[in-house]
């Protein structure tokens, strides 16, 4: 079992998200950094969609009550296993009684922990992800609290091994959105022309941005489907980047869409951080997603050789 000693700022169960129910108003949820989830699960030989812990900010303490291999990915929140510092992107072995603790860091916001074989969780509408807004999935639909216990099947020790994690950036690539033509047609260029500051009321639903020259307007559109990565522009001109827990429809103009491969960068952005956008093409966006897939395939092949040569 994994005992939650201290949850820290936010600790929740996430996987690659709940899909196929947006027409019923059900959000995607899921880890803000899907690549970190996939790398963690690949390191352990788990199916890619195995549910993991998403740790936000840090200040978290977890105790392993039985032996397991686990993987730590995402941002560097200064994790330690008892007194030993850990590096994100690595697989480790925990003995019964060992304490996994996180400090915090000004340079990172979220880390992920997966255990070999995964946690025993109930699947709700096709996913174990916690829908924090609607209150279902994960454990009782909420963030984890002190005293919560996650069950897993104990396993034997494997050698520690590390994977390269692609870096996190504060420059994000976007595709121009459908409503640019109805606003000032250069609105996507204006979005890219300067940097934007992340506001404190940002969360897993969306990242609110501000800047010196806001892109005010008076256009309202009929409510239509929005997605994680959609950049909405309310009349006050301060863009909102929708993230995994966003609502399924919205009535603000959509001026851009963050490319799939770059959405993970938002997992590490905190209030006060500066970000900027650059326009790209759908072809390049596909290529970047492919790159992530190649990266995971290479990792899986390398691990197969590594684990075979050791055993």
């Amino acid at each position, binding site marked *: 079992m994994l005992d939650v000693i201290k949850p820290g700022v936010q600790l929740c169960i996430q996987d690659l998200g709940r*899909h*196929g*129910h*947006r*027409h*019923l*108003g*059900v*959000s995607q949820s899921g880890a803000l950094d899907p690549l970190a989830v996939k790398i963690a699960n690949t390191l352990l030989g788990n199916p890619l969609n195995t549910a993991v812990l998403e740790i936000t900010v840090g200040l978290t303490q977890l105790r392993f009550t039985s032996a397991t291999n686990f993987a730590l990915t995402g941002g560097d929140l200064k994790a330690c296993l008892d007194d030993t510092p850990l590096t994100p992107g690595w697989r480790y072995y925990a003995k019964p009684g060992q304490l996994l603790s996180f400090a915090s860091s000004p340079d990172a916001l979220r880390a992920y922990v997966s255990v070999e074989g995964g946690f025993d969780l109930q699947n*709700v*509408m096709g996913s174990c992800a916690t*829908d924090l*807004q*609607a*209150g*279902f*999935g994960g454990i009782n639909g909420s963030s984890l609290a002190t005293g919560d216990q996650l069950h897993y099947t104990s396993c034997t020790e494997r050698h520690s091994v590390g994977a390269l994690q692609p870096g996190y950036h504060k420059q994000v690539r976007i*595709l121009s*959105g*459908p409503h640019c033509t109805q606003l000032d047609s250069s609105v996507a260029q204006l979005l890219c022309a300067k940097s934007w500051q992340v506001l404190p009321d940002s969360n897993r639903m969306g990242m609110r941005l501000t800047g010196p020259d806001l892109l005010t307007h008076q256009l309202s559109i*009929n*409510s*239509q*489907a929005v*997605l994680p*990565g*959609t950049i909405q522009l309310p009349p006050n001109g301060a863009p909102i980047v929708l993230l995994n827990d966003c*609502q*399924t*429809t*919205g009535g603000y103009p*959509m001026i851009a*869409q*963050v*490319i*799939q491969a770059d959405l993970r960068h938002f997992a590490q952005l905190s209030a006060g951080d500066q970000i900027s956008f650059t326009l790209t093409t*759908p072809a390049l*966006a*596909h290529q970047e*997603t492919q790159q992530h897939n190649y990266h995971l395939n290479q990792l899986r092949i390398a691990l197969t050789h590594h684990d075979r040569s050791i055993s």
Partner: protein
Amino acid sequence: MIQEQTYLLGEQAVVLDLNCARLDNTQQNRLFALHRHLQKQAQCTDIVVGKTSLTLVLQDPTQCASWQDQLLLLWEEFNAEDFHPTTHQIPVVYGQAAGPDLAPLAAQLGLSQSDIIELHSAPLYQVKFLGFLPGFAYLGCVPEQLRVARLDSPRTHVPAGSVAIAEDLSAIYPSTSPGGWRLLGHSPTQLFNPHSQPPCLFQPGDNVKFVPQKEGLC
């Protein structure tokens, strides 16, 4: 007249936008018929109906360009008669604690509370689309005499089951949440339960009939 069009939303989604302020009944039912048809295909992760649009999230993003053409062709193929909605009878206790905005609204509109109940429960509503919360259905259309703006300041706590109106739409809050719609009554019907199969009572295009209950004002 501006024609319907398709465009991309990011690298994974294609939108059919009917490019008008509102849909007439024929267009609306054609859209729902198309939605039902697309739901039977395995190529989409999600298909979301909007007020005047339909968005496809594709499993294979390389198919986006071909779906832009295909959606326009499919839109031409479907007739309103191809769509056969389910009708739900929804019991409602109107007024007093169950509908705290009924009395003030009657005063504002110069109607009696029972006039408002009669007007509100008269139409056969249709689920235009869902959003805001899981199972939150936007129901159209509220009779002209009852069309009022949202509250100036939204409530922080609207109880689950509240039956409400705002502008030309009515809704039932499936779960407790903040909300700015005017509360006319309350329904015991469970609209959404993630552990049930199916989890959501209403599907896009379903019909809803409100049935005033004796316990309330009626």
